[in-house]
């Protein structure tokens, strides 16, 4: 507070010391109602002490403070204090209220407090500063000096005032935002509606999956899977997307017959009724990590023995057929046993009897490499016998034929041969299994075995593991060709998981058998 004016005010009060009741300068009284200030100060004090008590009790009982209330109380107290201080500031010039009376304790100090003389050091300091200030104005007349000093004072005063104003404004703004209940910011209605809409979208997406489902057509696996999914999907065979098949299922559930499964890899089989059912049952197999399955699995369910998977074909031919095929196989056995090495490893995982069956099939497959070299010719040749055998919907697209993979051809070969062994009961299951052989599928296959002794086994995406073809291309081509199939029943089998797909019809076992024989002979003839 300023020293000079205060002293005057104080003297006012002290001059009539005899009067018990001191009256304030009336001007001061108009400016500030001291009683009200006192009341307010007392109430403020009480509020603060109440808050402190609350905290005490909270601390004692280890309860959780209710922050909302506490913070609002604090802000109220803060505001009140601020207001009081503001008001007093206006009239603080009139008061020095402490100490008010001379008594023992302040008798010694009071002269020092009252003295206008500065302490010696302060005085020296002050003198030095005064010298400094007046140095520049030495030469001027006193009036000029006074003028200059006045302007200086005014400037400084103005600067101080503006600084104070800024601080006060900022403080008021700060206080206003902190006042919770009194100044409640509202959200603009339009914005609230938008937010509500977004919120509903988000909540339904997270809790129910709305808005996140991709339609069938878009369920195409991108060319590059994220890192964490690469391992998951492409265990053996680089084909993807059993998600596709799963997606397809979502979209196409009952009408497995429909050809609308344009999902890239997972062209669904179009099968006849029983085959359809069988396929439905087996579809999970397709989904189960057998990307191969999706890619390839257009094979109709009819043939449990679909050889598409080549070496790991679990399908076991019936005894009669088996014997016949064995004769044929023995001719081929000597050919490429080494190529079956990988497949054998998978077969090793099978139970013994299954292994035997697989071995037979593998031997059969060993003839495939020989066939494999005749891609284009295969195409032509295969189609002919197929037609002859009245197979429905069996088409070998050129893409399939041009696979140029042994496995593919082997698969086809096996398809033919194994077709003989299909039995209606298993065909449904089998169709689902027409994927490239993968070792992982073998256990599934055994589980799916019907009760018959020798039953075609379902192959779930068993892959020979040497696939190099891009499944997508194959599947697309496969599918399209399948779709265009006149018979419309069988969709093209895709790659055994990218191996050649055959629409195997369960019919005409004998004819198939013959065709198998024929085909086996064919390579020999051609060679």
């Amino acid at each position, binding site marked *: 507070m300023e020293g000079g004016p205060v002293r005057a005010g104080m003297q006012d009060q002290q001059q009539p010391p005899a009067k018990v009741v001191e009256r304030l300068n009336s001007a001061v009284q108009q400016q500030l109602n001291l009683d009200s200030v006192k009341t307010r100060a007392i109430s403020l004090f009480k509020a603060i002490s109440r808050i402190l008590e609350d905290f005490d009790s909270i601390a004692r009982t280890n309860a*959780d403070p*209710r*922050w*909302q209330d506490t913070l609002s109380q604090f802000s109220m107290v803060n505001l009140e204090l601020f207001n009081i201080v503001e008001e007093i500031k206006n009239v603080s010039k009139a008061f020095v209220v402490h100490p008010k009376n001379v008594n023992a304790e302040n008798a010694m100090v009071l002269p020092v407090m009252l003295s206008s003389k500065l302490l010696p050091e302060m005085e020296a300091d002050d003198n030095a500063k005064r010298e400094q200030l007046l140095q520049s104005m030495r030469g001027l007349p006193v009036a000029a000096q006074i003028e200059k000093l006045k302007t200086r004072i005014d400037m400084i005063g103005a600067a101080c005032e503006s600084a104070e104003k800024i601080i006060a404004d*900022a*403080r008021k*703004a700060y206080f206003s*935002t902190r006042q*919770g209940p009194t100044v*409640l*910011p*509202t*959200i603009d209605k339009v914005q*609230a509606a938008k*937010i*509500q809409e*977004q*919120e*509903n*979208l*988000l*909540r339904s*997406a*997270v*809790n129910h*999956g709305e*808005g*996140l*489902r*991709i339609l069938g057509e*878009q369920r*195409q*696996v*991108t060319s590059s*899977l*994220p*890192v*964490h*999914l690469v*391992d*998951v*999907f492409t*265990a053996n065979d680089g084909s993807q997307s*059993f*998600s*596709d098949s*799963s*997606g397809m*299922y979502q979209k196409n*559930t009952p009408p497995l017959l429909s050809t609308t499964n344009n999902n890239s890899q997972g062209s669904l089989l179009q099968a006849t009724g029983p085959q359809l059912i069988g396929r*439905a*049952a087996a*579809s*999970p197999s*397709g*989904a*189960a*990590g*057998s990307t191969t399955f999706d890619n390839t699995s257009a094979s109709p369910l009819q043939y449990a023995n679909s050889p598409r998977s080549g070496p790991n074909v679990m399908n076991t031919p019936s005894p009669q057929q088996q014997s016949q095929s064995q004769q044929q196989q023995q001719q081929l056995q000597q050919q490429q046993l080494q190529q079956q090495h990988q497949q054998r490893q998978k077969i090793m995982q099978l139970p013994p009897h299954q292994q035997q069956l697989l071995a037979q099939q593998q031997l059969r497959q060993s003839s495939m490499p020989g066939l494999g070299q005749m891609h284009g010719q295969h195409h032509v040749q295969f189609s002919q016998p197929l037609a002859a055998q009245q197979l429905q919907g069996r088409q070998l697209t050129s893409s399939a034929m041009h696979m140029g993979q042994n496995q593919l051809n082997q698969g086809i070969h096996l398809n033919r041969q194994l077709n003989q062994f299909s039995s209606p009961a298993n065909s449904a299951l089998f169709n689902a299994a027409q994927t490239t052989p993968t070792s*992982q599928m073998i256990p599934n296959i055994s589980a799916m075995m019907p009760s018959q002794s020798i039953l075609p086994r379902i192959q779930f995406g068993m892959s020979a593991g040497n696939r190099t073809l891009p499944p997508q291309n194959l599947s697309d081509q496969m599918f399209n060709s399948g779709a265009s199939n006149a018979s419309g029943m069988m969709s093209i089998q895709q790659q055994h998981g990218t191996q050649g797909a055959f629409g195997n019809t369960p019919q005409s076992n004998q004819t198939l058998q013959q065709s198998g024989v024929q085909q086996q002979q064919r390579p020999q003839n051609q060679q």
Partner: protein
Amino acid sequence: MECVVEGIIETQHVEALEILLQGLCGVHRDRLRIHELCLKSVPNLGLVASELRLLCDLEQSEPTWTVRHIGGAMKGAGAEQLSVLVRNMVESKVSKKALRLFYALGYKLDHELLRVGFAFNFHRGAQIRVAVSSVNKMLKLHATDEAVPLTPGIQLVEVTAPASSENYAEVAAAVSSFCEYLAPLLHLSKPGNSTGVVPTAAAAAASLMSDGGGTTL
């Protein structure tokens, strides 16, 4: 079982929320990047369709997989009085082969999403986990690198705490009392109920983001 509440917060206030949570929880935040695949069983498998969620945590150096099954919520008058949702939940870590297994079992991919954000795990009356994440969708299947936020301006806040049938009441109380701390910034409610944003969020966020009192004035 678990107790769960959900809420939303505008993306602009997420940083303030993080500061608040940091102060309340006292632990470091964990970054969150989870690829969630929701699998549903096909209709001809079993009487009731079942749903599973496979979560792949992409934040670790080696992606870790978890399978989670969310069951029905507790019903009844007592459940209605609780401000949190109590529901059955079973969770387990699995290997990366789980996806193939479930496909083999007959599950199909229903939808997938990617959560990116952060989470705090701490103990305050119960083991509580607060996860603030932006939910992203993938336009192409499994393309997690190309995910876009589903709702760019809004992020999801989930507060979950595992519970058992014996102690779910205490856990629920702990969760709801914790949620009171977050009241200036967001409202939390059971997953089925929508809350909207809180009008004081902006002010609260501003005060949280400020240097703590007078210095910014």
